[in-house]
């Protein structure tokens, strides 16, 4: 009796969950499908869910008309570059705080977090002026540094929570086993820390890829990553929806895949370890 009720219930719940899931996903699905339509089909009324005439033309057009690939490379360079920069200075810091904490460590962590709370508009004006003076406007390197600074607190925090989970016992065991500090690092610490560093990196790439305040305000045609490039489609002339969809699909596809892979770490990273 109980079994039958459970199965029935599962069918209802499953149906509801799929409907809700598809509704939430619909705008993305719609964008992907539209990218394979001709411009005419894209604005046809009534709309058809699947393209009546499948075409890849939009993807080629996006590239030939607006040098899409350059913006894609900008996005890759900026997001990966800022992440690597952040890791380079965050790994030692998180390491020191996790393994030789002092009474001040906690305050330092809190202070780092508080820098993340500062709204970007609060510093937009001076940063803009400084960048203008230094000739860093519309420059990939300048943006890379800004995004590194934006995400540095999250990176330190995430790494810290991962490093904290490496048991001190193991480090002591390595010392008892005769490992010098260098060997301890190579054979024990680094292999154990790699998974944590990797997921921190992943989350940070996602955040940097999607960052849209500084990229919109500090770049123009040359250094614009995809966020800013896509925004240029908001100008009202013409309804190139299929092309817009193709450009959007290309812009979100890689990060959607990365995001799906890292969803577990995401919770932890975004809540600073408060929810695991």
């Amino acid at each position, binding site marked *: 009796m109980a079994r039958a009720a459970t199965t029935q219930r599962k069918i209802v719940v499953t149906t509801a969950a799929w409907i809700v899931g598809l509704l939430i996903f619909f705008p993305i699905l719609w964008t992907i499908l539209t990218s394979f339509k001709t411009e005419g089909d894209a604005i046809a009324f009534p709309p058809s869910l699947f393209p009546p005439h499948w075409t890849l033309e939009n993807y080629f057009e996006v590239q030939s008309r607006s040098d899409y690939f350059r913006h894609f490379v900008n996005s890759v360079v900026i997001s990966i570059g800022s992440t690597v920069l952040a890791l380079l200075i965050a790994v030692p810091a998180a390491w020191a705080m996790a393994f030789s904490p002092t009474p001040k460590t906690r305050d330092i962590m809190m202070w780092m977090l508080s820098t993340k709370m500062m709204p970007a508009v609060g510093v937009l004006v001076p940063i803009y002026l400084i960048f203008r003076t230094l000739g860093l406007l519309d420059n990939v390197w300048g943006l890379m540094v800004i995004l590194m600074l934006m995400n540095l607190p999250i990176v330190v925090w995430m790494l810290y929570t991962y490093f904290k989970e490496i048991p001190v*016992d193991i480090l002591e065991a390595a*010392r008892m086993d005769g490992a010098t500090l260098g060997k301890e690092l190579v054979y024990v610490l680094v292999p154990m820390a790699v998974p944590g560093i990797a997921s921190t990196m992943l989350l940070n790439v996602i955040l940097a890829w999607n960052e849209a305040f500084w990229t919109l305000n500090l770049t123009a045609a040359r250094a614009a990553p995809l966020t800013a490039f896509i925004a240029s489609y908001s100008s009202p002339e013409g309804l190139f929806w299929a092309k817009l969809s193709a450009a959007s699909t290309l812009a979100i596809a890689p990060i959607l895949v990365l995001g799906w892979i890292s969803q577990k770490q995401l919770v932890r990273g975004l809540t600073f370890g408060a929810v695991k």
Partner: protein
Amino acid sequence: MGSIQLQHVNKSFGTHAVIPDASLEIKDGEFVVFVGPSGCGKSTLLRLIAGLEDTTSGQILLDGQDMTAAAPAKRQLAMVFQSYALYPHMTVAQNIGFPLKMAGMDKAAIDAKVKEAAGVLNLTSYLDRRPRNLSGGQRQRVAIGRAIVREPKAFLFDEPLSNLDAALRVNMRLEISELHHQLKTTMVYVTHDQVEAMTMADRIVVLNAGNIEQFGTPMELYRTPANRFVAGFIGSPKMNFVDGAEAAKHGAFAIGVRPEHMAVNKDSGLWRGTVGVAEHLGSDTFLHVNVDGLGLMTVRAEGEKQLHHGDVVWLTPDPSRIYRFDKDGQALAAA
């Protein structure tokens, strides 16, 4: 060779002395157990010997050499941790071979040693697994394997069995004792379980609040405890203590009688009481008796004794086995 000497060792954190002043001499080849309640400083003492903690003052000598300031790796000691502290990213073979690799031994020699150790510890068929795919007992054996391959001067065990279930714990206890007989290497073993201490040790160090209360063979501690703390800690079930007028009859501030040193009779005896809970174990029966005017006492009776809740019984302590203590809890010489 592996003798360990502690001379007036003190360990303080700030003004708080965890180990006020400990002196101790462990002979080569001895199995010594540090036992005491949690927080008594037994693990700290072990970590001082290991070199994982710095001493505040005093000397630690290994084989007569002053090693107080030496790094853990230089002391040629091996340690088995409570959490096993296995390297999760290495296979069993790599875990066991790690200390040899650190010592710069060549690969063939490491392999041979690892195989030998795995044979001794029944780990041969698990050599390629990773720690997370092993049971608790197997992990424990890997940790021991990692310790024995390097042929240390002494083994240090920090509560190695406390994460195992009861049946496995008894097994591993026997295995470690057997290992000691085979290797004849000095072993220092920390536990809070007095049964482990009694069954495994050549000599036991009883610690309380950082002080060494008594250092002797298990039977010495059982027969002639130096004070009330040791008397109460060693032996299971615990010794019964009585103070007041009844103790004064024996010229002491307090007296103690072990549960196994009392006779139980239904008709007559020295102390009258009512049976509360009777625990029938088969081989023994433990009676928790509410003795009139003296309080709750535990008595061991023979296993088949048919006594139940509410029965009235008489208890008679063996007069030659009554322990006497003064006001400060120190043992008084037998009367």
